[in-house]
C-alpha cells in the first residue's frame, strides 16, 4: 500500500497538515559531489587525463625508457644511459639521415607555404565554380598517403615512368630521367610529393584566415593609394601571420616525422639518400629488433619538435599580450 505523500495536492495536503512536520531531506551524495566545483572539474577532466596518460604520456615515457636501455625484441634489456644516443650520433648512416630529415622538412615546408599561400590568394577571389575548385583542391589531402604515394611511384618508375615517356615522346629528353634511382633526384621527388600532398592543408587554412580579413581594410588602403603588393604586404600578411605560424608549425611537425611517404616511395634508398629519422628508427627497431636504438633515433626528433612548439607558443602568447 502506498504511503501518503507529504505536501501532496488535494486531500493529501490536509492529511499532511495533521501529521508531524517532516524535515526536508538533505541533498544526496551525488548532488553534493556535483555541487562541489573542484570535484566536478576533476570528474569532467578525468576522461581527458586518462586518454592523455594512456595514449600520450605512457608511450612517451616508454619511448624514453627504451632509448635508455638495451631492450631488443623479446629481451627486456638493462639501463645503458645515453649510449644508444652516442652510438647513433657516431653512426654515419644516422648523420646522413639527420641531414636528410632537415633538408626534406625545410624545403617541403617552404614549398607548401609558398604554393599554399598562392593558392589561397587565388581561391579568395570570386570566380565561377569556386566551390568545386575549393573542394577538389582537398583531394591530395584526403587520399590516403600510401595510395597516392604508390601512384607517384608508378609515375616515377625507373622503367615505365609516364613522365619519362611523355618527355621522350615530345623530344625533351633522349635518356630516361633518374627520378628515383639517383639519390638527389629521389629526395627532390619525395619533397615534391610531400608538397603536393600538404599544400591543400596550407591553402585551406590560409584561405580561412584570409576570409576573416575585412574587405574594408583593403578598400581603405586602396583609397590611400596602396597598390596590390602594398595591400598584400601591409594589410594581408600582418593579419594572416598568426594563422601562418600555426600552419607552419603543424606542417614542420608532420613533415619532420614523416614515415609513410618515404617507406612506400624509396624505402630510404638508394644508399640511404632518402632515409628520414622515422624510417631509420623503424629499420633498426623493427627489422633489426633493436628497440632501444630505434627509440633513441626517434627521440632525436623530440628536441627539434619541442623547440618548434615552444617558439610557436611564445609567439601566440606575445600576440595575446599585444
Amino acid at each position, binding site marked *: 500500500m502506498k504511503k501518503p505523500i507529504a505536501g501532496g495536492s488535494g486531500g493529501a495536503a490536509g492529511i499532511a497538515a495533521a501529521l508531524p512536520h517532516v524535515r526536508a531531506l538533505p541533498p544526496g551524495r551525488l548532488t553534493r559531489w556535483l555541487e562541489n566545483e573542484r570535484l566536478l572539474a576533476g570528474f569532467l577532466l578525468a576522461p581527458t587525463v586518462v586518454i592523455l596518460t594512456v595514449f600520450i604520456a605512457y608511450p612517451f615515457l616508454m619511448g624514453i625508457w627504451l632509448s635508455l636501455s638495451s631492450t*631488443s*625484441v*623479446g*629481451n627486456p634489456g638493462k639501463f645503458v644511459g645515453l649510449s644508444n644516443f652516442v*652510438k647513433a650520433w*657516431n*653512426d*654515419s*648512416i644516422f648523420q646522413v639521415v639527420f641531414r636528410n630529415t632537415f633538408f626534406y622538412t625545410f624545403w617541403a615546408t617552404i614549398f607548401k607555404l609558398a604554393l599554399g599561400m598562392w593558392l589561397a590568394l587565388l581561391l579568395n577571389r570570386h570566380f565561377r565554380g569556386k566551390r568545386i575548385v575549393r573542394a577538389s583542391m582537398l583531394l591530395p589531402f584526403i587520399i590516403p598517403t600510401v595510395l597516392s604515394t604508390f601512384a607517384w611511384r608508378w609515375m*616515377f*618508375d*625507373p*622503367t*615505365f615512368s609516364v613522365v619519362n615517356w611523355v618527355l621522350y615522346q615530345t623530344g625533351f629528353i633522349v635518356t*630516361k630521367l*633518374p*627520378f*628515383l*634511382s*639517383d*639519390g638527389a633526384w*629521389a629526395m627532390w621527388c619525395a619533397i615534391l610529393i610531400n608538397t603536393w600532398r600538404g599544400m591543400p592543408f596550407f591553402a585551406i587554412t590560409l584561405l580561412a584566415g584570409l576570409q576573416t580579413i575585412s574587405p574594408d581594410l583593403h578598400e581603405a588602403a586602396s583609397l590611400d593609394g596602396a597598390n596590390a603588393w602594398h595591400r598584400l604586404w601591409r594589410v594581408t600578411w600582418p593579419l594572416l601571420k598568426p594563422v601562418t605560424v600555426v600552419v607552419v608549425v603543424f606542417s614542420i611537425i608532420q613533415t619532420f616525422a614523416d614515415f609513410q611517404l618515404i617507406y612506400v616511395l*624509396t*624505402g*630510404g*634508398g*638508394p*644508399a*640511404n639518400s632518402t632515409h628520414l629519422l622515422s624510417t631509420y628508427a623503424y*629499420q*633498426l*627497431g*623493427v*627489422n*633489426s*629488433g*633493436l*628497440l632501444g636504438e630505434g627509440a633513441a633515433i626517434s627521440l632525436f626528433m623530440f628536441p627539434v619538435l619541442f623547440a618548434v612548439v615552444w617558439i610557436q607558443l611564445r609567439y601566440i602568447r606575445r600576440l595575446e599580450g599585444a
Partner: protein
Amino acid sequence: MTTEKREDGASKSGQVDRRTFIKTTGVAAGVAGGIEGILAARRAPAFAQGTKLHWVRWNDFIPEADVELKTRQVPEASKALGAEVTLETINANDIQPRITAAIQSGSGADIFHLFYNWPQLYQNSLVDVSDIANAVVKDQGGFYDVYKPSFQVGGKWMGMPHSIVGNAVAYRRSWLKDVGATEYPKTWDEALKVFTLLKKKGRPYGQTLGHTFGDAPTFAYPLLWNFGGAETDASGKKVVINSKGTVESVKFMQAFWKEACDEGGLAWDDTNNNRAFHAGELSATLNGASIYIVAKRQKEKIKDEKGEPMYLDIDHAGLLPAGPAGQFPLYFSTGHGIMKYSKNQKLAKDFLAWLHKKENFEKWFQVNEGYSVAATTSWENHPMWSKIDKPLQVFRTAARKTRIFGHAGPSSGKATEAFSKYIVVDMYAKAVQGMKAEDAVKWAEGELKKVYEG
C-alpha cells in the same frame, strides 16, 4: 541418465567417454610420439573444445601454394587435430612488425613464418622445436646446411625449417644467342662481355640495388662471396670486409653497372624486375622462378617481340656466375616458429608435425613446381623434378650451396642488423653512383665495425 561402462572404458553403445579417450590418446601419443600417437588413436586429440591455432605466413608469390594451404591442408589439419587452425597470409614486409608487436605485448599468432635467420633474433621468444625437427630429419634426410647457423641456437632448433626459395638468373635464351652466348656465362668476366653487348642493343641486365629484402641482398652478398670477400672472420667478431676480394668485387660491379645494367635498378623493389622482364625490357635478371611461372601461366598475355609466348624463350641459370673464389648463393630460407607466449604450444607442435608429414608436405611442394624447395635433402629425389619444365629443374639442387649473411661468422642478430641496414647492398650502390671502390669498402668496414665490434 547413466551409461553402462565396460572395463575398457567404452560404453555398450560403442562410444568412448571423454576421460577414457584422453587417457587412451595420451598414452598412445606418449608411446608413439606426437602425430603418430594421434593417428594411432584414430581420434582427434583432446584439445579443449573450441581450441584455436593462429598461423601467420606471407602472401606466397605462387598464389596456388596459398590456395593449397587454405582450402585443403588447414581444414584437414583442423579435422585431424581436433582444433580450429586458421591461416592468415600477409605481406612479407609486414611479418616482422607483427612478430615484434606480438612478442612485446605477449599475445598474437601461435605460429609465425620466419625468414632467413630470424630464430636468432627472436630466440628468447620462441619454443624449442628440436623434437619435431629431429623427427623430420630422421624421416626426410638432413636439413640443408644453411639452416644450422640460422635456425639453431646453442644446438637447439628454435625454428622449424620449412622451405627455401631458390634464386636463379632468368634470361632470354634467344637474345643471349644473338650475341654469341649459347649458354649462360659461367664467370663474371664472361657475363660482363655478354651483357655489355646486350645493353648496346637496348637489352640490359636488370638488377636492383635498392632497399629491398629479396633481390638486392641475394645479389650483393653472393657477389661479395664469389670474389672472396666476407663480412667477418669465422669468429664473427672481427670485420674483414676491407679485403682485396671485396675491392675487386666493387670495382667489377662499377664496370658491370655502367656497361651492362639498367641503371634505373637503384630504385627498384622486388617486383620491378619481374615487370620489366615481362615487358621485354631486360635480357636477364636475378629472381625466383616466378618470372617463368607467371609468364607460363599468362602465356596469352606475356609474349616476346615475335608474338610468341615469352616463357618458351626463358631459361634459368641456377647460380650467379663464378668469381675468383667460387659460386655461393644466398637463397631465401624460411621456416616456422612457435611463440613462447602461445597457450597452445603442444597443439602448435602437433600441427607442424602434421604439416611436415610426407604426404601433406608433398602436396604443397608439388604445387610450387620448384619455386620453393624443401628444407631437407631427400626431396631432391622426388619424381616431380623429372616432370616439371626444364628451366625449373635448376632449383632441384639449388639449396645445397647456399650461405647466409654473417658469413664467415655465425648468422647472429648482429648479422641481421648489418643486413637490415643494407650495408653490403649500399656499399655497391654507393660505388655505382660514383664513390671510389676503396672508399665504398672503407665506408662499409666502418659501419660493420660499429655493428660487429661495437
